[in-house]
């Protein structure tokens, strides 16, 4: 099948994104080359688009994704798929700081590690990281799931709201107001259903499910210590 090839180089980023949007309208698969790790590649991609980036990308790649399937061959910079509404984003290597920041829905699949504040203030959707998630991951996540198969850095799930953080592997330390609970078989089955299409189900995993202790949801002067921990 023919793919539309778009060369990035040193052209203005608006021109490149206009080319990408025009290519999306043809319904063909899109390959973006020579990215030079530039920022803001593939912003606001429409439903049904299929696009892959050769090499690595810079900040905010696939931000505001509206339903496209996006693949990054190697690493992604900060804020990958920020504010995504729906779609599927795969990163072959490492995803930098704040992957999936404030995302509303869709799936992000990182094959390597993820940087600090993975899923910060996410409001829906799922982030699956095969490696380790960085410092303060899940910070103030409102909804959705972060699933890490290779452990987590310090201050994990810090100030979590209604999101969930699922970790298999070592956790360096927990953040403020986090409660680790034993997941039910139904809940594990739900997570496996998310991992299944990615071929990542493994029944031997020892999950730690993290949810909010809810001490930061309302201010209680009797419980002021919880706020001082922030």
């Amino acid at each position, binding site marked *: 099948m023919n793919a539309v090839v778009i060369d990035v180089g040193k052209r203005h980023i608006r021109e490149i994104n206009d080319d990408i949007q025009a290519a999306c309208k043809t319904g063909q698969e899109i390959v973006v080359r020579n990215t030079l790790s530039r920022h803001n590649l593939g912003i606001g991609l429409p439903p049904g688009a299929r696009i892959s980036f050769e090499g*690595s990308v810079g900040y905010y790649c696939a931000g505001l994704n509206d339903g496209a399937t996006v693949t990054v061959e190697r690493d992604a*910079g900060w804020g990958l798929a920020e504010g995504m509404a729906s779609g599927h984003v795969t990163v072959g290597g*490492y995803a*930098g700081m704040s992957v999936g920041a404030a995302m509303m829905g869709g799936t992000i699949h990182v094959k390597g590690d993820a940087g600090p504040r993975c899923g910060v203030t996410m409001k829906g959707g799922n982030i699956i990281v095969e490696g380790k998630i960085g*410092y303060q991951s899940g910070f103030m996540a409102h909804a959705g799931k972060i699933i890490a198969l290779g452990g987590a*850095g310090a201050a994990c799930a810090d100030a979590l709201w209604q999101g969930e953080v699922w970790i298999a592997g070592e956790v360096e330390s927990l953040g403020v107001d986090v409660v680790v609970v034993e997941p039910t078989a139904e809940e594990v089955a739900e997570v496996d259903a998310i991992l299944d299409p990615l071929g990542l189900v493994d029944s031997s995993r020892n999950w730690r499910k993290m949810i909010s202790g809810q001490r930061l949801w309302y201010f209680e002067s009797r419980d002021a210590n919880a706020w001082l921990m922030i």
Partner: protein
Amino acid sequence: MCGIAGRILNSPGKVGADLVELMDAQEHRGADSTGFAIYGPPRDSGYVLRCTGFDKQRLSRDLEEFHAVLREHGADYLEDPKILTDDSAHYCVRMVISDPRDLGRWIADADLISDHFEVQSCGRSLEIIKDIGGSSAVADKHGVRDMIGTHGLGHARLATESSVLPNASHPFWARPFPDVAIVHNGQITDYYTWRAKLERRGYRFLTQNDSELIAVWVSDQIKNGLTMDQALKKSITSIDGVFTYMIARENVIGFAKDRFAMKPLVVVERDGELAAATEEQAVRRVVPDESDVINYDGPGQTRIWQTTNRRMVA
């Protein structure tokens, strides 16, 4: 938001040209002013100075005053000062001087005229070039692309805490420690506390810029017996704020990053050479093909890179 960069070459080469590229790619992070710290082949004796005078109408009077202080301290010009003027009110001078009897005492006296004439770097090898404008403009004006050296730092400034002035931009020289320079991306929140403490120890600050403080803080720790690595690590728990800074000395570049992991640093190390910048797309300007980058994204990190072959002919 500022942009920083560091570069180490295996042998003396066009480190200036590389730093100009690294900063040109990061101009969107701050175009108020741009600066470079370049370590050329080191002298056995004598110091290279880079100075700024704030009013070119006073140029000859400034130089007379400066020269008088220099001679009082038993030193003199080894070469005629090279003066650079343009449309702006300020002017820049490069000098090579013989060793003053006591560097610290001389710079303290030379700083008495720092309200109109300022030494912005001093070293056997270090030269700091900084001015208003973007990377290309500063490089064109000062011939930075032709500067040969083994390592150096770059900075694009978005002023958040103090004025946009040629002398208030980065890199900063760690007054009075020769050959120490710093670039910094971030804000120090306990600046005034530390500044007062360091001033009580006799240090002098010429700007209101918090980055000037870090350079002196680290050098003071090293003077008091810490290794550079220990000093960098200690800065993470001692200095409050968000920062990623890179500090360069005669034969080394190091960096430290705050506990909150707020400011990025991306590094490519290849064949003993280093290219480091705030953004990966900048590093790719000098390491064009796809290569493995290290993202120092985590909290509380430090690292030191040694330079080698400083005296080899290019």
